[in-house]
């Protein structure tokens, strides 16, 4: 059975003020129907641009998708007409965003914002669309959904807005939901609510989910596999247990060690990754992580390592992956 989504060598660049920003530099991954994965990375690692690219929401100017394929349900999204692509967006692939405060249009009622997608994709009439919208709102646990359809976004709390965003995204029964840092702007307790909600809905509706996050902890319990991005590249991709137990890439390792453990006692000094992320205006020809990597050798500073398939769905982009793994036998788990 073919994958639901197959991304191959995706390249996206931005042209701004005379500079070229190499945001995504050949990203490949695949996702099966109903499966879930996470793309993890820090600001500027290219994780958001990757999913924006596959939704073809990168606007030119300044951004342009310059290469690769995005095979979704056996069609290459990058080769569809704008009209065909529009029929997929919000319908087969839906997306929710980081900041529920700004992702809803402040001057339009929730009802209108929820129904416009339904009407465009499912051809529902106004009545039917409103009914469906209310149904979706109650599905995401919003009380009194029918009455609240005429309210405006500012009349809801942050958590409620994110619920509305989820309802909106799922209203056309998408095969794939992309959740772009959906909980970052929310408080811990609300985060938990939202994660539970998406997780529950995924099981209920059987859709695939891509989580975008900078927080390795957040996605640990909810995905099947994880891709770690750094400097516009996927540096490591593994089934979830494997990644947390045996991180192969020094960056993954560093990230895991930089997080203080909630269950530990005194941990001594916190592990820190010195230096700063690479400047994507001048992307290195070599391993992008090399300047910050405690394991880096000359080779790392000379050439970009390939994404090595290690079997069992694990792959890593590091010249010294084996050695690193050996040096950290215990992994990051404590």
């Amino acid at each position: 059975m073919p994958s639901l989504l197959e991304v191959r060598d995706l390249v996206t660049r931005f042209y701004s003020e005379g500079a070229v920003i190499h945001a995504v530099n050949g990203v490949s991954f695949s996702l099966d129907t109903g499966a879930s994965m996470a793309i993890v990375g820090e600001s500027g690692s290219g994780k958001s641009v990757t999913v924006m690219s596959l939704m073809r929401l990168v606007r030119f100017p300044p951004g342009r998708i310059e290469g690769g394929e995005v095979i979704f349900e056996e069609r290459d999204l990058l080769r569809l007409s704008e009209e065909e692509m529009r029929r997929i967006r919000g319908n087969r692939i839906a997306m929710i965003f980081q900041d529920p405060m700004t992702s809803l249009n402040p001057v339009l009622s929730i009802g209108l914002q929820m129904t416009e997608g339904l009407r465009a994709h499912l051809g529902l009439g106004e009545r039917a669309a409103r009914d469906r919208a209310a149904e979706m709102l109650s599905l995401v646990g919003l009380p009194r959904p029918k009455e609240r359809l005429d309210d405006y976004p500012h009349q809801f709390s942050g958590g409620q807005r994110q619920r509305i965003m989820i309802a909106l995204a799922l209203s056309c029964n998408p095969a794939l939901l992309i959740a772009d840092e959906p909980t970052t702007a929310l408080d811990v307790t609300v985060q938990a609510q939202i994660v539970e909600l998406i997780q529950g809905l995924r099981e209920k509706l059987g859709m695939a989910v891509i989580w975008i996050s900078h927080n390795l902890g957040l996605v640990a319990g909810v995905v099947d596999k994880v891709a770690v991005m750094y400097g516009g590249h996927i540096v490591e991709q593994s089934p979830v247990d494997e990644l947390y137990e045996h991180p192969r890439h020094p960056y993954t390792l560093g990230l895991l060690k930089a997080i203080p453990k909630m269950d530990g006692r005194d941990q001594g000094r916190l592990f820190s990754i010195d230096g700063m992320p690479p400047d994507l205006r001048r992307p290195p020809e070599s391993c992008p992580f090399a300047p910050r990597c405690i394991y880096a050798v000359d080779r790392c500073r000379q050439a970009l390592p390939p994404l090595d398939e290690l079997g069992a769905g694990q792959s890593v982009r590091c010249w010294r992956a084996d050695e690193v793994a050996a040096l950290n036998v215990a992994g990051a788990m404590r």
Partner: protein
Amino acid sequence: MRTAEHKDVLVRVEDLKVHFPILRGLLKRQVGAVRAVDGVSFDLFQGETLGLVGESGCGKSTTGLAMLRLLDPTSGRIVFGGRDVASLDQRELRASRKHMQMVFQDPYSSLNPRMTVGSIIIEPLNVHKIGTPAERRGRVQELMRLVGLNPSFINRYPHEFSGGQRQRIGLARALATNPSLIVADEPISALDVSIQAQVVNLMADLRGQLGLTYLMVSHDLSMVRYISDRVAVMYLGRIVELGRRDPVFDTPRHPYTRALLSAIPTPNPKRERERRRIVLQGDVPNPANPPSGCRFHPRCPLATDVCREADPALRNIGGLPDGPPHLVACHHAENV
């Protein structure tokens, strides 16, 4: 981490209240108040780090600002060095700034974009007329080295630095006058994970080197757990639980603390999958109109009638005899 010796109280906060008036009507009369901080008391011991945690809007940042009187408290006392900061006049207050400093959350807006790094760091020295001009310049270099910045960048502007570096500049500014207290308001929340650790480590090092006392305001519980000696948990303008770090984290006695802790994800897929979260229902109520009785009762899984009626006081529930008490404001603390 080192555990501080709890003997000298550096700051004593007593029944601190910060209310923001709500004005309405033709003549803008006050019709109510947002009770951002509504009766908070705690001691801050010399050399310790107190973590102040809670969700957004719980009043933790307001408490921090009011402690330094960057916001005027509505009532209450803040005793620092034998004097009530809340009642100092402007001149005395400015002089007292030398001893208590702040590190801000946003590394972007907390540095004046039109000033060089050098002039930002030297400003407190100029304001308090510490040393000769030459000494001040030397001090700036020293401070920059102390926080891990290359002193050759002294004439650069903030926008040329990364978030982590800016936070270091902010730290250097705060340390310039050799303060004894630093209030850090979410100092790392705007930084990337890999940078956060750098700043946290730096702050921990500085505390050791300079004998600083920190009030660490944060919503990041894992970081608080890492850096604090004691932890205070705030909910809707009140402290609901206050005690030494490990007891609070390991055996929380307030249902809210428990829910808060259970919500924190850990990077361990197996444990995460098995874990049962306590998912709180609903949202934080409006601080202008807090619920009767225990403010947490509408969301509390353990709430009973008494919670709806009586406002629970902070009470000691099994702190160690020789150490600071473990305070909880819950009628049912024993059952949690």
